[in-house]
């Protein structure tokens, strides 16, 4: 009789952060992540990919986080790096205003629906403008993440209250 193979059970958390978002806490977090990754027996360029994706997600949260007035537990940012036999998984979460949810969803859906060559073209077009034009949110960051991971971004929005939702995204990198 064949045994069921459950790879999911071998998932391991390399690091996890939940708390406030400040320049120094983000630096600390990235330093911690990098130290963990450097101990991984994976090829250097895979570790670089994972770290690069983490940098984008962490800085994205830092720049675009909507900070609710009341410092409640559910309003903090969360970052987690997991690995199983096939993948490293970067999970990032932060609160966003409800009135931004639809726009954010449509941006990610649009990038998720594009092929890698289409994303490359889009990235190049946007990049060629330099910083002269105002950048609407995290557009290029998401494109960069999908190009690096080669996979779509999974996301959820969980309503927090009448003003805020909690946005979580998940990206995988094959080991």
């Amino acid at each position, binding site marked *: 009789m064949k045994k069921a193979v459950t790879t999911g059970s071998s998932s391991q958390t390399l690091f996890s952060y939940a708390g406030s978002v400040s*320049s120094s806490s*983000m*630096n600390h977090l*990235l*330093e911690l992540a990098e130290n963990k990754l450097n101990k991984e027996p994976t*090829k*250097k*360029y895979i570790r*670089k*990919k994972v*770290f*690069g994706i983490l*940098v*984008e997600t962490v*800085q994205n949260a*830092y*720049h675009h986080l909507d900070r609710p007035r009341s410092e409640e537990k559910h309003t903090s940012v969360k970052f987690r790096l997991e690995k199983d036999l096939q993948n490293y998984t970067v999970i990032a979460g932060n609160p966003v205003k409800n009135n931004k949810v639809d726009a954010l969803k449509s941006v990610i859906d649009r990038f998720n629906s594009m092929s890698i060559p289409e994303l*490359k073209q889009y*990235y*190049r077009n946007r*990049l*060629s*403008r*330099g*910083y002269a034009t105002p*950048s609407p949110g995290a557009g*290029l*960051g998401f494109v*960069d993440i999908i*190009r*690096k991971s080669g996979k779509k971004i999974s996301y959820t929005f969980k309503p927090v209250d009448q003003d805020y939702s909690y946005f979580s995204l998940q990206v995988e990198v094959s080991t």
Partner: protein
Amino acid sequence: MDDFILEATPKTPRLYFSKESGEFEISGRSIPENSIEFYKPVISWLDNYIHEPNHHTLLVIKLEYFNTSSSKCLVEILRRLESLTEQSIVKVKWCYEEEDEDMQESGEDFKEIMKVPIEMVQVRDN
């Protein structure tokens, strides 16, 4: 004009821009939270350099990591060099480690969108 030299930090690259030799280098990692602020001084320096450039200008870019906001600043730097091509022979070398497809791909992104010649240089993993 003086050379523009800034040592590397864990989040920002070494910037070595020598007016005397016309040799420039950006190396290390470029992941500052505010890239525009970080690159502003060197871009102003280049704005002066392009008024009285050397006959030869070489920029070596050897980055381990860079974030998307830094990539926009790199475009701005390359633009400055692009405007020089009549007064100075400009060369850009984009270094990437073998196996690092992402960094190679990034170099190709710049090569595709910039008019200034960018040479792709594969370097040994260190």
